[in-house]
């Protein structure tokens, strides 16, 4: 297992590597997975600070006008879990969900850049409820997103089932895929010109980290890839969560392609990263954004109390692997790490698996980072984990270079287990 010292050393080394990396031309010189610039920004609070920060970041990655003008843009938000369950009194969007201010600012900027239609997507937990209702359950007002648009039509769709589509669309995974050769998804992932993933920067019990790639796990509908899906055809509505992907306890209905190798490990740490890598390879992310302004560590769904932290970060870029590599580094992790090393102690690296499918590089030496420097804004998620007794951090020098997080003695209330 990688130690905290290793991570600290890594950050120092990464800074040196980046100093060299920025001298490289934007186009990747090396063969292999593509590289693309990533914007990294400090953002100390939700609210008014978010919009100008994102606007600047979009400029830093070359602007989004040419990407979205006159186009239909789909935004996959990160709204996993029960929206009316909080850790203590902390609203779920401050720890687990993409914050509505980040989502709203993105809608605003996309519409300003000329998007003709913006469709907000999520497959909330294991439900077929209208996405707007899910937002209301979280205490949000979906009309705020409509009002955030300067002209683009804003729509919402729960992609956990057929939704407003007439049929599912089959996406084939390049290079044959890791777990499945192809997946059937809600029409919204096909009926869009541009696909945006807005992930939350957080730790995850199974995949190690949730960023813009892991966010896309929700692209697959529970009517096909969930417990309770019928044997022959997709269900009309979800009847359970995505345990078949986690545990491999069954195949999808016969109408969808089965997994490549039913004899492969049934271990979630093997399966989930492969599934997610497949997803971002078959439905490429055109714009990736990570909301790391406020978040949680200690592992979503880990069974440990989730811990409220304030990394004060935003990350954005056109290549989702590059964005996640920078995001991982900003969390204090080595994006080149693999299974057995933080944050992938119990899982294969989703970044590496996506890289193998040609999605993008995770090598920081090949990624131009615009805006803030990783070493200056990094927030070490492990270092800021609470101790077993609830006191913050395990480092004697914690606080010397660490921003945000809870003040000593303010242990976060735990939400505990049982969230999807």
């Amino acid at each position, binding site marked *: 297992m990688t130690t905290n010292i290793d991570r600290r050393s890594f950050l120092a080394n990464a800074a040196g590597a980046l100093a060299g990396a920025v001298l490289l031309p934007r186009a990747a010189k090396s063969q292999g997975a593509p590289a693309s610039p990533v914007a990294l920004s400090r953002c100390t609070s939700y609210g008014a600070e978010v919009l100008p920060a994102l606007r600047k970041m979009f400029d830093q990655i070359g602007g989004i006008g040419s990407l979205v003008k006159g186009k239909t843009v789909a935004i996959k938000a990160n709204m996993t879990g029960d929206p009316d369950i909080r850790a203590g*009194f902390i609203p779920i969007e*401050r720890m687990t969900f993409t914050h509505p201010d980040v989502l709203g600012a993105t809608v605003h900027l996309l519409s300003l850049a000329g998007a003709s239609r913006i469709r907000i997507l999520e497959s909330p937990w294991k439900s077929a409820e209208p996405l*707007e209702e899910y937002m209301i359950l979280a*205490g949000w007002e979906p009309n705020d997103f409509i009002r955030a648009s300067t002209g683009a039509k804003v729509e919402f769709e729960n992609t956990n089932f057929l939704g407003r589509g007439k049929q599912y669309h089959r996406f084939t995974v390049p290079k044959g895929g890791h777990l499945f050769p192809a997946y059937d998804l809600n029409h919204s992932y096909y009926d869009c010109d541009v696909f945006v993933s807005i992930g939350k920067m957080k730790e995850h019990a199974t995949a190690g980290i949730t960023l813009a790639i892991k966010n896309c796990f929700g692209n697959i509908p529970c009517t096909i890839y969930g417990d309770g899906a019928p044997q022959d055809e997709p269900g009309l*509505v979800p009847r359970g969560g995505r345990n078949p992907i986690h545990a491999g306890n069954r195949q999808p209905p016969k109408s969808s392609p089965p997994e490549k190798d039913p004899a492969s490990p049934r271990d979630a740490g093997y399966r989930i990263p492969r599934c997610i890598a497949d997803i971002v390879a078959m439905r490429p992310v055109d714009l990736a954004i990570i909301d790391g302004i406020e978040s949680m560590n200690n592992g979503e769904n880990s069974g440990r109390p989730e811990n409220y932290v304030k990394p004060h970060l935003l990350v954005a870029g056109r290549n989702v692997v590059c964005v996640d590599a920078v995001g991982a580094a900003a969390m204090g992790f080595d994006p080149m790490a693999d299974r057995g090393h933080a944050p992938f102690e119990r899982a294969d690296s989703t970044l590496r698996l996506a890289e193998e499918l040609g999605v993008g590089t995770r090598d920081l030496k090949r990624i131009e980072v615009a805006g803030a420097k990783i070493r200056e804004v990094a927030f070490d998620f492990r270092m800021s984990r609470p101790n077993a007794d609830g006191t913050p951090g395990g480092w004697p020098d914690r606080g010397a270079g660490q921003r945000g997080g809870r003040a000593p003695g303010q242990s976060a209330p735990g939400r505990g287990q*049982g969230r999807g």
Partner: protein
Amino acid sequence: MADTVLVPFRWPAAWTDAKLISLFEGSPINCLVASGASPAVVGAAGKAGLTVLEWGSLDAAPLAKVNWNTAAPRIMLTDLVWPRVKLAAPGAGQAQSGPTGAPWIDSNSWVARLAAARASGKQVWLDFEPPKGEAPPDEGAYRVAIADAAATGARWVVQLDDQLSKALPSGNADALKTWRGILATLAFFEKQSAWRAYVHQGPLAIVSTFAGDNEYMGTELLNLAARNKMVYRIIDRSRVLSADLTGLRGVLWVDNDPPAAGIVARLAAFARGGGLLIVPATAAPLFKGERVLDCPVAGYELRAFGKGTVAAATREWDDPYFLALDAHNLVSRRYDPIRVFNGSSCWIHYSVAPDGKDSLIQLVGFTGGRSFRGGSGRLVDDVAIRIPARHRSVTVYTLDAAPVPLEPVTVDKQVEYHLPGFSNYIALEVKV
């Protein structure tokens, strides 16, 4: 003594000593329900001012067999559950999960509300006993049993478990402590007797016979809608024509057999006036709307209908859980009078004063006491509530402390109330 203030207690058959009547001195219990109590006991009870009712005279019956036209001043319901978080197996210490993943809660409150809707003006008494063959309930569990009934305006005919009924006569200190807790809880609710006149409200009315072929779907819908934190009104189908539909945003007609002509006219008028009518596929031809509208909920065709809309199911309703979700989504949670965070282990009641102004929010917490994972004394904490309607003040009531004003807090530009930790019950009185 007027029947409306009878507070009943089931006299244990084994209690033959008339001196035990002294246990009720100064207590809110003023009525003993007995089965063949000795003349000495009956006499002592009379001297103490207690009313004695013979069990056999009460026409106690399960919901499906109640004589709703009885001249008796009360309805006595049997075949009920012990209110608690459902355990995977007795003594297992693990809670069962419901369809939402939240712990499954056994509650009688929907039964009590249905009885009240059917027998308006009558007292509703609930007869159920503590579970046998497992650890006896503690004080917290008794509090939950009382609160689960009282929050609906009903009364539990208090029954002691075998261990408590044996220990209490001997003056056992633990038993006396539990007994005092029971009496204090009863006294709390009797002190708030004005709340019994409050009317349970919500943006949706659920209409059914709740009987015969409609019993399963209708009654499970009431149960699961409440578990889904949906607040609603109950309208027995026989009373639709006279029911007050004011303030409703939607009416759900549950039964597969279509409504009669008079009821069709009433429901159509409701929709034409701006309401949402939700009907099964079998009733769709009776409410032919105008243009088809975009329907966000799968399995329905939504049509304009005058100023309102009709959502007709396009497939058969076969699962009351999904019907409850569908109905909530069709009406929209936007119109929920309260929004609750971290309340998954609670049963939530919303009622409005007879003048339609002040309101009452009650939460029965099922995780307190031994009823959940052996966690005696465990608090329900970090519950937050938003009250969208304008209001002047909120006062919080708990079983163990005097009422106190609750100040609002602003979280992400939203005003909400952060409830103090509570074990079994909390109420917010909202003044406009």
